[in-house]
């Protein structure tokens, strides 16, 4: 089959010295299968025969990382090449970190148990801002200098991509290369470059300079940032010629032609999403104004139904999963969703394979489809109205009415569901106490629906804290400060008393930090390093989140978190991420911000007229409606 590919069912030999030490350590840690490798479809190649070696580093634990579709795609893309290999590594849990440090062992790849330092590239995926200390921890465990400028010629190139790469500034000084947008093609170009440099020779600086010429690649160390006395960014400029002033994201034009991860690694452990994942389309044009994914992944590009049916077949054959999840930003918006669901049920339903949807729109059509795939309705059904009043839903452009939602709920009740989950955000721009009371009111109305038989057993309301994100119409907004956020959460909480009502909310301190990391600039990097040295890691896990240590880190470095998180930024100020271009224009974001404040909604451009975000012309993609073919 592939050059140098070792069959997935090949026996796991005692590979090296490291493996011998692991035999002693692994029985002592929780869930040792996080650190063993050896899963079905794992690709193990002979390092001696492969010129370019990369390890994909997921800065969270195995169960989270193994649920990430993007990593599966890149694993397939790289390992299909005869001249390259990709292995995996995840953030160790605290027990394993302790063992590695106590035994003087380096962080290693799962496939061949090779120290990370021996790879040519380490690729971090930036899915969530609260993983940044894990990145430092992983580099340190690998014995690689944290700061890009301190790395030696022989150190691996540290590459990062993913949604947070659209403002990587807080961690930019730790990264050699940042990739903007979809990685399938651009990663291949980077690997070509590394292979050529290894053949011909050349310095690290020359390599970085050549990489900066690849569209979609950002080399932070070639840009200088100047600041005003006010603390705002004055300019971000390339420090040499041949470096683009603005880096534009990469996208694939035709998803039908894209590499599809048909042989994903099948974990032994029960991971977060332990199922086959079928990606229907990329992008979402609903235009929710708080949603970064909705802006940075534009435009919408669908796969053909025939392609999807074929891909589903191969996925199930190659993995043995009993469930296939239709994963996209808003999967039910796929133009031929009914046809697709019917085809999948018809082909696989008799083999005990379930079709599932990760999220539902709050409308009748959504309930119809859910009814079809959940033949026995034991689980709860989830809707995300996001805000408690029509006024605020118009502000955020969540185009769902209370009538839509209640009709969907009644329909779900008729279909047999008795347990509901409702998702909202607290702290949205222009929010008042009336909007918050509206959340509780809506929940009560759902709980008080009287079905023909039985009754509603539970309505779970989840309220997360609004975090303003770069490249959204709300990027200029300041986050409501921590105390006020807490007051608002408690206001909702106090209203959700009742035996069928349950309320869950997120810690406001974690949300403050997330806001700083989302909108920060390079002056945050020393704070992250300091926090990590003070012992912060696994910040996304509430049992490990140490806000006291973070506060100390801000104080030690002399950075005010409120400047980044809570300040409303003037529209004429240069943003730390202005030199990174997702294709959506700043003018569009500004006009959307204006429309938000006046309560005007903007329709989905894939259903109605073009809203002029600028992404299609910028990326040279023909504008078309949903379901239209080329």
């Amino acid at each position, binding site marked *: 089959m592939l050059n140098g590919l070792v069959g997935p069912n090949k*026996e796991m030999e005692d590979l090296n010295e490291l493996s011998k030490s692991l035999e002693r350590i692994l029985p002592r840690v929780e869930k040792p299968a996080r650190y063993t490798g050896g899963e079905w479809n794992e690709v193990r190649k002979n390092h001696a025969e492969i010129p370019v070696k990369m390890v994909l580093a997921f800065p969270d634990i195995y169960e989270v990382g193994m649920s990430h579709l993007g990593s599966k795609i890149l694993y397939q893309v790289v390992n299909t090449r005869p001249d390259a290999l990709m292995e995996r590594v995840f953030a160790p849990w605290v027990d394993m970190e302790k063992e590695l440090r106590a035994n003087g062992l380096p962080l290693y790849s799962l496939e061949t148990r090779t120290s990370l330092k021996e790879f040519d590239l380490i690729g971090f995926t930036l899915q969530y801002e609260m993983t940044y200390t894990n990145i430092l921890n992983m580099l340190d465990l690998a014995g690689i200098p944290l700061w890009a400028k301190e790395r030696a010629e022989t150190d691996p190139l540290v590459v990062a991509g993913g949604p947070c790469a659209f403002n990587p500034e807080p961690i930019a000084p730790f990264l050699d290369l940042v990739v903007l947008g979809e990685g399938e093609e651009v990663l291949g170009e980077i690997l070509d470059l590394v292979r050529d440099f290894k053949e011909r020779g050349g310095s690290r600086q020359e390599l970085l300079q050549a990489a900066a010429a690849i569209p979609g690649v950002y080399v932070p160390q070639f840009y200088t940032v100047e600041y005003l006395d006010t603390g705002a960014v004055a300019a971000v400029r390339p420090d040499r010629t041949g470096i683009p002033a603005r880096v534009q994201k990469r996208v694939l034009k035709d998803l039908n032609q894209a590499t599809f991860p048909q042989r994903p690694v099948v974990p032994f452990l029960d991971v977060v999403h332990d199922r086959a994942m079928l990606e229907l389309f990329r992008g979402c044009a609903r235009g929710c104004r708080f949603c970064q994914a909705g802006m940075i992944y534009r435009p919408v590009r669908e796969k053909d139904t025939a392609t999807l049916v074929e891909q589903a077949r191969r996925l199930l054959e190659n*993995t*043995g999963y009993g469930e296939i999840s239709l994963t996209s930003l808003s999967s039910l918006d796929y133009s031929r969703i009914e046809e697709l669901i019917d085809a999948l049920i018809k082909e696989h339903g008799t083999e005990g394979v379930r079709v599932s949807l990760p999220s539902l729109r709050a409308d009748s059509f959504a309930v119809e489809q859910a009814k079809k795939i959940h033949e026995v309705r034991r689980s709860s059904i989830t809707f995300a109205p996001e805000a408690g009043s029509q006024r605020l839903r118009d502000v955020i452009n969540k185009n769902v009415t209370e009538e839509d939602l209640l009709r969907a709920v009644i329909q779900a009740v008729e279909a047999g569901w008795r347990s509901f989950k409702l998702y909202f955000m607290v702290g949205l721009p222009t929010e008042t106490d009336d909007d918050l009371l509206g959340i509780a009111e809506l929940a009560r109305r759902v709980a008080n629906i009287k079905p023909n038989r039985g009754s509603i057993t539970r309505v779970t309301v989840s309220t997360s804290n609004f975090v303003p994100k770069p490249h959204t119409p709300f990027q200029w907004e300041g986050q409501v400060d921590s105390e006020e956020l807490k007051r608002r959460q408690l206001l909702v909480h106090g209203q959700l008393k009742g035996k069928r009502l349950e309320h869950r909310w997120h810690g406001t301190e974690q949300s403050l930090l997330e806001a700083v990391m989302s909108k920060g600039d390079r002056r945050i990097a020393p704070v992250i390093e300091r926090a990590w040295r003070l012992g912060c890691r696994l910040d996304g896990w509430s049992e490990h989140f140490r806000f006291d240590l973070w506060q100390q880190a801000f104080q030690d470095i002399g950075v005010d978190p409120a400047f980044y998180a809570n300040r409303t930024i003037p529209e004429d100020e240069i943003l730390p991420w202005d030199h990174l271009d997702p294709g959506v224009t700043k003018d569009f974001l500004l006009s959307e911000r204006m429309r938000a404040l006046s309560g005007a909604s903007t329709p989905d451009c894939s259903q109605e007229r073009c809203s002029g975000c600028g992404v299609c012309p910028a990326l040279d993609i023909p504008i078309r409606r949903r379901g239209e073919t080329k």
Partner: protein
Amino acid sequence: MKIRVRLAKERVARFISHLDFAGAVEKAVRRAALPVAYSEGFTPRPKIAFGSALALGGTSEAEFADFELRELLPVAEFKTRLEAQLPAGIKVLAAREVSKNAPSLMAQINAASYQVEAQLTGRQEKEIQTAWEEFLEQGSIIIVKETKSKRRDLDIRPLILQARLRARDAGGTWDLLLRAGSTGNVRPEEVLQAFWNANNWHGFIETIHRTGLYIESRGNLLSPLVEFKVRGEVEGNR
């Protein structure tokens, strides 16, 4: 039809739990497109029933599972197709058809044999061997079983059916035949811990290997797979 299979769990697979081991076999069955029967309901699962669980970390040459098929299939073909889809560290050792009405493995199995390697730093061969014999001569050996909610005393002496130690300086190899299943259950690490405690020693278990699961009746050992009598020898299970 129903096929009973004996599986091995070794190397990297020893680090997966019993539940994840079952999940891995289930996925292999689906990949092999074997005509297993599926349960009804929201999440249909292939009808595979496993014998008693092995603690994470141990290896085994005696994991048993019953597969209920909805179509007839030659056992040899079943075995080959399943084997081709099993991940590293899980192997099919033997398979045979059993009666559709055969009692479940969980209901039948009441004994398990293990080989345990352990270290006892600073102790002499003779000292260990003598202490072990004295340990077994006791009329009762009480250990404290702790679950989340309660503690209870358990006499494990009657649950040790056969035991043989080959001691050496600073350690030894234990062959144990222990009661297993719903009529009484003791794990090899519990036996050795009780032994360390009785002598105030700090032992360290290096490996636990399960060598057999049995249906024990009046001193005779029957293999769940080969339905004939095996003389009461620990190693005789094939």
